[in-house]
Structures are given as structure tokens and as C-alpha cells.
């Protein structure tokens, strides 16, 4: 080879080798003062920084926070880099992030007093292979949320897990453009929850042994209202029969133990191709806000679920041990096991057209769920006119579009894995 060729080759090689090492700004070592050094690194990070964490069980007694954009925090694996907050003395959460372009991967956050990972007001969030867990199992003393983006845009949560949260394991609130996929929610009150959010795809997740598996909620009185356009598909939602341990009086405390999927007052929701089984109150429940029993004081809030399309799910088992008011009021009327799919029957009378039907594009449609049975339990009429007839719901709706995230959020990082 000529000298020039060698030189060019060397230059090319060095560029190739350095693609992945360009931004290793901060490799932290375990040891004394780890949490002080970690917090200093989070404060001093420049946009684009990658903070590498060591292996080990790293003891944290105080909350961490990040407010610099475009920072990546990377551990050595969610079973290898464990931020343990068992001795937490101050601060409400484990790690709170208020900046955009945030990526966190390959670590675990355990036993925080409050929420494990809270991301507030960010545009661009990627949570990948992160485990949030309360290691003593379900308890009302556990923090509320495991993985908790709120008021965010462009959110990707994948290959992650949340175990033991006293409200919701993976909770996305008041946000838009969301993907939650290939993740595991176990032993939380709510496994995965999408609340007051627009454009969410929740797929290929496992929600098992929670109180309720997957919740799609739209609630009043929050700054961001009008949740809708959520797809829940290809998930396994099974055996969500863990006794409710949510804070008394909270919305999540009202979820009946043994619920698979609940759609509460959200519009344009498609629940399809899921395996939903062995949830002992109801596998699928579609309800209006009136069924919560809370008064509505928010004039701009729309409490009815509309354009709900439940189709092509494999539903089996469950309904054998209904919980809460279902057990007390409804099961004696209806018998056990409870039907697989429940609807509270409350519709907006203003929207009813001829034949007392909702317009085609706003209907509740339930199709092709095998022999899963159904009930409209007439909550508005105190269960007087329950009906098991699926015919009025034998319709289809236009499939919702897929969520598209900007490329930076959706792709694994350069040099990653």
C-alpha cells in the first residue's frame, strides 16, 4: 500500500472506531461519594453528554435531578446497575428529569420513597431497558409511579419493567405521541396507564398480577384534558388479581381487583389482538366518568367514552371472583362468572340519533372476540335493564393510525447495545 493509502485508511479507521466513543463524557466509578459525584455530573452535563454508570448496588439517600437537555444516562444493565433508594432520607422521587431529549437505559431504580423515575415537561423521552421496582412487593407504602412521564411529547418506553407501584407502574400522563412497548408491568395497582394523553400506542407488553392491567383514562380537573387516540394491541393482560393497595380516595383505588383493560371516558380507543385472560372481575371494562362516583366540577370535561373499538382479542377465563361494588351489587343480579366485556351503558343523550343510537363513528364496537360474552350493566339505571346482547355493538370503526415518533427517539443510540 502506498503511504497515502495507509494514511487514508488510518483516518477512515479512526473515524469508524470513534463513532461510538465521541461522547463518553462521564464514566462514574462506584465508591464513596457516588451519589454526590452522580448529581454533580447531572448538574455539570453539557447537552449531548452521556453519563455512564458503573455496575453495582449503588446506595442513594437523596433524590437525583436532571435539567440539561439531550443527556443520556446509561448503566450496565437493569440487573447490574441498581440505584437503591432503600435508605432515602430526602426528596420526593428517585430521579426527576425536567429537560428534553432525555435517554435512560440499562439500569434499575429500586425502593424509592416516592416515584422512581419522573420526567416532567420533556420533548423527547426514551426509557429503554429500565426496571423500576419496590422489592418488598405490593404495599401502600411504595411510591406511586414507576416510570412516569407527565406533560411530555414524543415518549418511547421500551423493554422496561415496573413492579410494585402503589398507583401505576408505567404511567404516561397529559402527554402526546407515546409508544409503550415490549415492557413488563407486574404487581402494581395499575400496570400500564395512559391518562389524559393523545396518540398512544401500547403494544407487545405483559401486564400481569396487577390490580388492573392496562388503563386508558381521561379525567377532569387536570391542566391537560381530552385524552384520546390510543391503541392497545398485542399485549398479554392476564391474572391481574392482586388486591388493590392504592391510596384510599385516589382514582386508582377504585379499580376493582381483577380488571384486565379499563377504558374510562376516553375517545378513540382501539383495543385489539390482545390476549386478555383470567382477570377475576372483568377482562375488559368500558365506562363513563359517572361510574367513578365522583362529582364533575369541570365544565370543559367530556365524561363519555366514544369511538371505542374492541376487536380480535383472545379473551378467556376470569370473572370468577368479582371485586368491590361489582361483587356486592352486580354479581347477584348477573351471576358468576362475570361476563368478559363490561360496559356501563352510559351514553351522551345529546348525541343519540334516530333509533337511540350513537352516530356510526362514535359507537362502542365489539367484534370478533371469539365467544367472549358481554354485558351492558345499565349503571345509569341502577342495573335495572342489564343486557347481554352484543348485536348493538357489532360494528367496526376505522382503525386508528400508528404513532410515529421522531427518528431520534425511536432508534437505538449509535454504539448502543
Amino acid at each position: 500500500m502506498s503511504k497515502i493509502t495507509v494514511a487514508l485508511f488510518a483516518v477512515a479507521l479512526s473515524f469508524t472506531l470513534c463513532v461510538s466513543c465521541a461522547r463518553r463524557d462521564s464514566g462514574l466509578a462506584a465508591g464513596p461519594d457516588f451519589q454526590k459525584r452522580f448529581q454533580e455530573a447531572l448538574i455539570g452535563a453539557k447537552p449531548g453528554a452521556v453519563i455512564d454508570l458503573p455496575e453495582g448496588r449503588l446506595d442513594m439517600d437523596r433524590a437525583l435531578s436532571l435539567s440539561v437537555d439531550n443527556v443520556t444516562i446509561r448503566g450496565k444493565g437493569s440487573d447490574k446497575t441498581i440505584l437503591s433508594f432503600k435508605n432515602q432520607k430526602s426528596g420526593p422521587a428517585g430521579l426527576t428529569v425536567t429537560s428534553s431529549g432525555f435517554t435512560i437505559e440499562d439500569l434499575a431504580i429500586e425502593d424509592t420513597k416516592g416515584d422512581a423515575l419522573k420526567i416532567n415537561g420533556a420533548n423527547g423521552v426514551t426509557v429503554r431497558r429500565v426496571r423500576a421496582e419496590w422489592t418488598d412487593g405490593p404495599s401502600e407504602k411504595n411510591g406511586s409511579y414507576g416510570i412516569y412521564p407527565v406533560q411530555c411529547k414524543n415518549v418511547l418506553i421500551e423493554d422496561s419493567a415496573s413492579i410494585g407501584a402503589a398507583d401505576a407502574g408505567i404511567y404516561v400522563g397529559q402527554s402526546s405521541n407515546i409508544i409503550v412497548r415490549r415492557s413488563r408491568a407486574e404487581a402494581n395497582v395499575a400496570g400500564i396507564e395512559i391518562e389524559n394523553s393523545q396518540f398512544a400506542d401500547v403494544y407487545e407488553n405483559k401486564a400481569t398480577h396487577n390490580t388492573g392491567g392496562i388503563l386508558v383514562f381521561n379525567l377532569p380537573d387536570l391542566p391537560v384534558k381530552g385524552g384520546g387516540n390510543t391503541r392497545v394491541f398485542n399485549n398479554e393482560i392476564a391474572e391481574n388479581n392482586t388486591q388493590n393497595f392504592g391510596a384510599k380516595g385516589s382514582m386508582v383505588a377504585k379499580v376493582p381487583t381483577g380488571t384486565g383493560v379499563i377504558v374510562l371516558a376516553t375517545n378513540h380507543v382501539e383495543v385489539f389482538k390482545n390476549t386478555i385472560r383470567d382477570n377475576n372481575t372483568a377482562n375488559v371494562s368500558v365506562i363513563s366518568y359517572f361510574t367513578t362516583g365522583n362529582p364533575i366540577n369541570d365544565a370543559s370535561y367530556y365524561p363519555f367514552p366514544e369511538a371505542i373499538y374492541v376487536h380480535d382479542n383472545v379473551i378467556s377465563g376470569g370473572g370468577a371472583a368479582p371485586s368491590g361494588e361489582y361483587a356486592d351489587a352486580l354479581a347477584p343480579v348477573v351471576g358468576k362468572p362475570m361476563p368478559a366485556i363490561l360496559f356501563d351503558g352510559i351514553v351522551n343523550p345529546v348525541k343519540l340519533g334516530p333509533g337511540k343510537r350513537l352516530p356510526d363513528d362514535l359507537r362502542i364496537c365489539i367484534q370478533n372476540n371469539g365467544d367472549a360474552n358481554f354485558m351492558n350493566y345499565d349503571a345509569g339505571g341502577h342495573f335495572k335493564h342489564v343486557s347481554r346482547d352484543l348485536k348493538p355493538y357489532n360494528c367496526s370503526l376505522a382503525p386508528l393510525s400508528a404513532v410515529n415518533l421522531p427518528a431520534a427517539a425511536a432508534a437505538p443510540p449509535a454504539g448502543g447495545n
Partner: protein
Amino acid sequence: MAAVLMFSACGGRGVHPHVAEPYPERLSAWHLFAGEPAALKPNAGVIPYDLNTPLFSDYATKYRFVWMPPGTSATYNETEVFDFPVGTIFSKTFAYPDADQGGKQRIIETRLLVNSRSGWVTLPYVWNREQTEATLDVAADPTTVHWVHPSGTRYTIDYVIPNTNQCKGCHDRSKIVTPIGPKARNLNKDFNYPDGRFNQLAYWTRIGYLKGAPPPDHAPKLAVWDDPASGSLDARARAYLEINCAHCHNPQGPANTTGLYLLAAQTDPMRLGLCKVPVSAGQGSGDLLFDVVGGKPEESILVHRMESTTPKVMMPELGRSMVHREGVALIREWIASMRGKCSEGRSGHL
């Protein structure tokens, strides 16, 4: 008067402002104080000030000062923090009577809030035990403080010095770092200056630190939380809640996702928490149902959280490790004076 203050700052030992990185490692580099550091004797142009109702900080003594570059002034605003010039330095120094030194004052930290070229920056300086210097520490460890109350009671607390993110956690208006205290309604009070007792808005105007302020009796004024002569129970409780809570609990604050808004000017009772179902309190609700129940402080989540010192339950989240007994008593009295029932609705299921 203004000229004397300004020109005496110009020769050598006046305040050294810094408006860009890197910021000094040592507090003394700012020359905010003259003479022995721990005496906190303000340098020329460094003006002490006080608030009608201050934030509770574990009963620490707090010394507040403001300095502006010569020839500059803040612009008055009736409702929001004044518009301060680039170069403005706010300093707040926290100290306790040290139980291990017969009550001699031990200074713990001085927090600077500096209006730099790129916005307000927060700089925490931690004092050494010798009280000769304070050093910038962006993520300081907590420090044990043994302090003695004038009554003789001794307390031991794990005093948390905020890291710079935690400073920003409260000093946040729509994600922009902002001062909290220096608003017309909280500054509108008399202060005992070395040269006499004067209203702060009038004094700042006289020395050229403030332009556009109306006469003090035309400016808004917050009640003094523990002075019944300064306002009604409601006014005093609202002042207390504003300064302790509303930096987060307002529509542009870090807790705006909760819908609980506690500025003194808030008129909607639901936004103040009356019969409001909590949004994300979780176990912070203490199994209670509403933020505020009229006539029933013991059933109000607001009181429960003020009385807690457990992370996740306690409110404010940061800034205190003790319960403010007197503040809690005020809020309990305020809630007890309210009427009205919260309808719990039908006990629901989903």
C-alpha cells in the same frame, strides 16, 4: 444619598459582579460583605431586605441582601417579580444559634441568585466550620446542625443544602429560573436600615434601585402571617400558603400538573383545594379524600402533608425537614373557620 452609596462602591473593595461562567469558587470573591466574613456586614450598595411573610426554612435565621450594578435599577411590576437588571445579585444566608457553642451563630450556607447574561443562575456556597469562608458546592451533602431555640430547647436536624437543580426546582416559572420573594406585595413593608426605618419600596426607589413604583400605600401588600394586626385570618393564611407553596403550585409552576393553585390572588375555591380530589398525591393523601375540607383541618390533605416529615408525603417537598408548628396552626385555624361540605359522591367502582 444614592450617589454616596454608588461611588463608595467604586474604589477597589466594592462588589465584584460575575455575569457568566466560570463563577467564583469562594463567596469572598464577590465582595458582598466587608470585614470579617461571618459578621455579614454588607458592602456598599448591598442592601438588606425582608419580606412580609417569608418561606419556612426549619427556623433558620435568614439574612437577605440585594445588589445591583451602579447606574442600574429594577422596574416595578404590580403582581410579578420586578424586572431586575443583568448583574443583580440576591443573597440569602442561613444561620442558626449553635447549641455546641453556647448559642453563637453558625452560618450554614449562602445562596446567590445572580442575573447573569444568560438568565438567573443559582449558586449555593457552603460555609466552613471556622466561619472564614464559603465554597461553591453544586451538590452539597446534608450537614448536621445542633441548634438552640431562644427558649432553650435544643434541636438536631439533618440540614439539606439544596443542589443547584433543587434551587431551580422551586425558582421556576414556566421553566425559567426566577426569583420568588422580591415582589411588590412582599417587599411592601418597613425595614430598619442603618440610616433609619423606611418602607422598602420607597427606599429602593430613593437609592435608585427601583423605578416606577407607586407610593407604598398604592402598592399591594401581603399580610404578615403571624401578625393579626396586619390582616384577617384569611389574608394571613393566604400569604403563608403563597410564599410556602405557590412557587410550585401556580399555573406556571412545577406543580401545575396538580391543578392546586395557591397564589394569594387565587379566587377559585376548588383551585385552593376546597373539596378537591388529589391528582397525584398517592400515599401523600394519608387516606384522606380532599385537599381541604371546610371546617375540618384534620380531614384535609393540605394539613396532613404540612405535618409530615416523610419524603413523598411532606409538603413542601424540599426546603424543610421540620414541621412548622406555628404555620400549621395558622392553616388549621383557617380551615376550621370555613364552612361547607364536600360531597363524597356515591362510593364508586370502575
